[in-house]
Structure formats: structure tokens, C-alpha cells
């Protein structure tokens, strides 16, 4: 009998380019699971989040997103995993509408549906500062199965996890306390396993 694959599987996943290096990271994230990864630096957290969402390809080791390899099937991976970057950004009302429309076009979603979904998410994330809510709304309108958060604000952990709904969440952190805010006792708290 075949065992079901985890939604995200990283095995000794390492990124290296010149002086920049991240990993090796070994972890599994199952469907609907909440996981937080504590790494040594902010830079490494950003790179690991990008690797887990197929934005950056691992230089060595293995990353599989729902059985798809980002090195050859990056489009399929990016439909499943959505990255929320660390950098907040503010937009005017008009720019926000354009932003949602732009993401809807890139993800080939129905623009009206995306706008309605964004409005619902915006109400749900009313407690979060807009600069942090906008990237999260942008990521969630694509209806990903895995939400990858690069150093999210621990103060908003409850709202973010509630907005994610049944979507699996992996957050990367350079601070252990922040990581614990996203993976409470009942859920898994993962650490990079060095090979």
C-alpha cells in the first residue's frame, strides 16, 4: 500500500549562490498542518520560505510540493504553495483593487470572484495592520493548499492562522518565540535538521 505524500517534503534542501547559503532543511508538512521553522538568520528564513514555495530552487537536496518537483514543475508547485513575503507594503484603495486584479490575472482567477474573496479576507483580517494584511490577502485569493510565511509578525499569529482556514501553514522565523506563536503546543514545531 502506498503511503500518502506530505504536502511539502524537504530533504537536506540547501540553497547556495556565492556567499549566500541556506539549509540544509529537512521537514514534512502535512495537509492542513501548522508548522513553524526556526532558522539562524533572517536571510536564511527568507530563502527557506522561498524554497518551500518554489520561488527559489534548491541547489542540492530535495524539495517536493505535493509530489511536484519545483526544479521541473514550478508552475504546478506555485499553484499549490503561496508565499507571503516578510516585507509589508501599503497601497491606496485604488492600488489595492489593481493589486487584487493583477494577482487574479496572473493566477488566472475570475476577477469578480477574486475581488469578492479579497473583500471577505479583508474583513476577516481587520485586526491586522493593512501593510501586513495586503500580502496575505494577495496570497490567499489564489486558494493555495500551503501558505508559506516569511517571518510573519507573531502578534498577529491568531488572525493569520484563522484566515488561513484549512490551508496548511509553514512559517519561517529567526526568533524561537515568534516560531512558537505560530506552532502552539498541540501542533508541530519543526527545526532544521542538519545533515
Amino acid at each position, binding site marked *: 500500500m502506498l503511503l500518502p505524500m506530505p504536502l511539502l517534503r524537504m530533504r537536506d534542501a540547501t540553497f547556495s*549562490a556565492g556567499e549566500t547559503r541556506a539549509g540544509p532543511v529537512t521537514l514534512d508538512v502535512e495537509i492542513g498542518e501548522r508548522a513553524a521553522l526556526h532558522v539562524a538568520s533572517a536571510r536564511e528564513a527568507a530563502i527557506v520560505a522561498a524554497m518551500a514555495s518554489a*520561488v527559489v530552487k534548491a541547489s542540492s537536496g530535495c524539495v517536493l510540493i505535493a509530489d511536484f518537483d519545483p526544479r521541473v514543475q514550478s508552475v504546478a508547485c506555485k499553484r499549490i504553495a503561496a508565499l507571503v513575503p516578510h516585507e509589508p507594503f501599503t497601497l491606496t484603495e485604488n492600488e489595492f483593487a489593481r493589486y487584487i486584479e*493583477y494577482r487574479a490575472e496572473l493566477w488566472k482567477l475570475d476577477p469578480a470572484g477574486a475581488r469578492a474573496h479579497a473583500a471577505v479576507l479583508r474583513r476577516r483580517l481587520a485586526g491586522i495592520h493593512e501593510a501586513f494584511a495586503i500580502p496575505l490577502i494577495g496570497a490567499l485569493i489564489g486558494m493555495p493548499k500551503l501558505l508559506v510565511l516569511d517571518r510573519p509578525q507573531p502578534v498577529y499569529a491568531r488572525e493569520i492562522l484563522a484566515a488561513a482556514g484549512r490551508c496548511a501553514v509553514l512559517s519561517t522565523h529567526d526568533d524561537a518565540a515568534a516560531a512558537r506563536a505560530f506552532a502552539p503546543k498541540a501542533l508541530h514545531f519543526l527545526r532544521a535538521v542538519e545533515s
Partner: protein
Amino acid sequence: MNSRVAIAVLRARLYAQRRIVFYACVAAFVAGFVQPDGLAAPLFLCSLLGITTALAQSPGLHPYLDSCEASAPLFGRQLARAKALVPCVAATLAVGVYAVAEALRGAPSVPITFAISLGAVGAATLTALSATIRRGAPRVFYVAIAAGIALAAYALASEAHSPIAALSLCAITAFLALRQYGEALGRYDPI
């Protein structure tokens, strides 16, 4: 190419860079209105504008557009074609505005000047796009190649009196530059 994605990228980036496109068109109009006849002014000025608008697609200038595009479920070549449309449209507008200014001034041989300038500007712009995802010497190298292509097109059209050869050179280099940009964007890690 998926036209929906291409139009979306074109609209978003042209909106974000509307000022640079406007200034490029104004510069082209002024130059076209006051410059003497000939191919040098439209070809080199508009190539410069094309290279500038291509470099304006570099990562970091519009971070939220960059992050959307990097995480969007698109192949490198799809994104490359969509992003290449932006400076090409801006440069074509500049060449068109220059030609209109020349025509208003009553300059001779506007159509042939327009065709050769458009070819050279397109090739230079597409070549300069490869510089946007590189740093240091490789970036300078691609900008230099883009300038070299404009120079070669001018030499072929104006000195060798062979506009067909100039247009052929531009078509071949534009095709190769777009392919190269797509390949590079597919391998590019936005770190």
C-alpha cells in the same frame, strides 16, 4: 503566450512606470521636432530610451509587482514575453511619437526612418532586458551589446546603405535576445 497574463503584466507595469514612459515620449517628440533629418537621432535617442525602460524592469524598483510575478504560476518564458512587452511598447511609443514630430516638421523619408529605428530600438531593448537580472560586469556587458546592436544597425542602414541587412540583423538579434531572456528568467532565483 497567454494573452491574459501578458496584458495584465503590461497594464500593471506601464501603470507603475507611466511617468518614465511619458517623459520618454516627450523627449522623443522634442528631439523629433528640432533635430536635423537623418537616422542617427531617432535611432540612438529611441534606443537609449528603450534601454532605459528595459532597465526599469529590474527587480527591486516595484517590489510588490516583482513578488507577485516571482510567485505566480508562470513559466519563465511566459513571464519573459509578458515583461518584454512593457519596454517594447514604451519604446515603440517613443519611436512613433518621434515619427509624428518629424512628419509635422515635414521631414523627408519618415516611413523608412521609422521602420529602421523601430527595428533597432526593439533589438536593443530586448537585449538590454537580459541586463535587468544581472549585476556588475555582466549587466554592463548586456547594456554594451544593446548599444552595439543599435550602432551596427545604424552602420548597415546609413553607411552601407542596406536597410534590409539592418532590419535582418535587428530581427535575428531580437529573437535571440528574447529567447535568452526567457531562459535566464526561468533559471533566475530572486534572492
